[in-house]
């Protein structure tokens, strides 16, 4: 178990290094002089020279990266060009809001996804199953931001059940979370359905029936547990994906999270902030992946703790 976690963390660190190179290179990939682009057309030559120095862009690339990564490791993601505040402070201020959204979205997607998945599997090939499958295809086809707008138009504008995009309270949270949840639920639904159908054909389900157990015990105690093991992996990946999905949804609801921060930074060409957000999201994403892998090895008793062999 320990060995497995160590390996997983090590490979995660490698990937994070890769992302740091990617986010570092962003500024160098800009066609033309990045500093001029950051400062806009009206910048004076002195300003350009000053910012170039400040960002260390006059040094060799490797030296720059060395400096960059040293700073990052020490928690210094640079300074926002627009606000002059440390990038990490800006990010950490917004991050909890994004997490709030993603976690609630995930909860909703798990509830919808698993229940519809069970329903579809239980009534395999029936009209219910077909509706669920159609829902799943619809879920991956509908633009999340349009779903968000529709929900707002129906529930906030027409029915006035929820406030229109203002604060970050619980009532403000519901519509964006539903949007995220519906979109993310389709994957969970498909996986639960197919997993359930497969598991229900297993010998141990027949054993459970031979014991005279009631259907709900067979379904929930014997089948669902086995289905959930792979589903948990996907749920974890969904959480990471949801963090990406919030970027768009936050725009619709003016949600003060990482997404609005990143988009704002792109508009104002605040590159240290852009780099910082992307690196930060990468780190979060990979951390979640590692946690999911570890969780997986814990909940599946077949994954042997010592060797991780079958």
């Amino acid at each position, binding site marked *: 178990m320990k060995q497995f976690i160590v390996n997983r963390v090590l490979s995660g660190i*490698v*990937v994070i290094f*890769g*992302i740091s190179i*990617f*986010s570092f290179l*962003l500024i160098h*990939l*800009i*066609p033309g002089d990045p500093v001029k*682009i950051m400062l806009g057309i009206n910048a004076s030559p002195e300003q350009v020279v000053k910012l170039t120095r400040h960002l260390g862009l006059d040094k060799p690339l490797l030296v720059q990266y060395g400096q960059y990564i040293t700073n990052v490791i020490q928690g210094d993601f640079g300074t926002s060009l627009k606000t002059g505040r440390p990038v990490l402070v800006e990010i950490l201020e917004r991050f909890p809001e994004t997490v709030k959204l993603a976690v609630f979205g995930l909860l909703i997607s798990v509830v919808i996804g698993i229940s519809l998945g069970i329903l579809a599997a239980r009534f395999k090939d029936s009209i219910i199953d077909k509706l669920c499958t159609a829902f799943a*295809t*619809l879920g*991956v*086809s*509908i*633009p*999340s*931001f*349009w*779903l968000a*707008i*529709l929900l*707002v*138009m129906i529930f906030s*504008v027409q029915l006035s059940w929820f406030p*229109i995009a203002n604060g970050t309270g619980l009532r403000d949270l519901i519509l964006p979370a539903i949007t995220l949840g519906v979109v993310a639920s389709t994957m969970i639904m*498909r996986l639960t359905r*197919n997993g359930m159908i497969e598991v229900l054909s297993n010998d141990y389900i027949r054993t459970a029936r031979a014991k005279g157990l009631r259907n709900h015990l067979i379904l929930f105690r014997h089948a669902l547990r086995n289905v959930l093991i792979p589903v948990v992996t996907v749920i974890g990946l969904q959480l*990471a*994906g949801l*963090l*990406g*999905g919030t*970027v*768009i949804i936050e*725009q*619709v609801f003016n949600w003060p999270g990482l997404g609005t921060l*990143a*988009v704002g*930074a*792109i*508009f104002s060409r605040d*590159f240290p902030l*852009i780099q910082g957000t*992307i690196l930060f*999201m*990468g780190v979060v*994403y*990979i951390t979640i*992946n590692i946690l999911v892998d570890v969780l997986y090895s814990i909940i599946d008793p077949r994954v042997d703790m010592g060797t991780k062999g079958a």
Partner: protein
Amino acid sequence: MRKLETYKPIQARVTYKSPLKIKSDSLQKLSRDKRAIVCIFFLFIVFIIGIFSPLLAPHNPEELFYESILEAPSKEHLLGTDAIGRDVLSRLIYGVRVTLTVSLMAVTITFFIGTLIGLICAYVGGWVDNVLMRIMDILLALPSIILALAIVAVLGPSLTNAMIAVGIASIPGFARIIRGAAITIKSSGFVEASRSIGSSHSWILRRQFLPNVTGILLVYTTLFIGVAILDTAALSFIGLGAQPPTPEWGTMLSEGKNYMLDAWWLATFPGLAITIVVFAVNFLGDALRDIFDPKSSR
């Protein structure tokens, strides 16, 4: 002489296993799949609308009707007008053109670079494979929309840049799928057999690899078109893609969003258009997957 003779049956097997037969089988299956036919037919119509949008649109998409600003759907303007009096239906029809061009171009980028990387990885293997796949892993570690955002950040907001960004952002996923499929083929024996009879690398690549990954390429290209449409619309929606007054569906939605209190049609129809087209693409993709890649179905 003798050796040559013993190799003959292998060669025969190579031709026997060649994908031509599989392909005609699949086409037959495809022609019998009702949902696939419906989707293809529908997408064909969408395509036609895209080509002939100037003929089909009732108005110029940029013509301003000053008397009818924010007018609800009526006989004159079937889907209403927007905040500066443009005909929504006409913009929607022109939007087909923009959406199709952009998403197809984006997928073309994904397709060529992704296939190239995937095939190289699978075929060359060794450290090349390792290095390329590590890079893909790193890029895959970011959600594709974030990756696209980063690229747009570098290139600057515009429709072309959004297209490039979306195309590039899908490459890692695509390359991975192609590599996986190609490795399965590589290890399936007949590539080895043809290499043992001295076929050249490029011959193997062209005649053995490509035809055999055709099905998978078809499936995932289709599915990635859906992703491309959604992602470019998303980028345009947050203002990093198409810029006004381009009649792009995502941009139209973001304009419509500001008027959702009093002009529901502005934020309804462009979204509906995206959803229907992407739905058809995905449905077709699923049908194709059932036919060409049944193992990973659903």
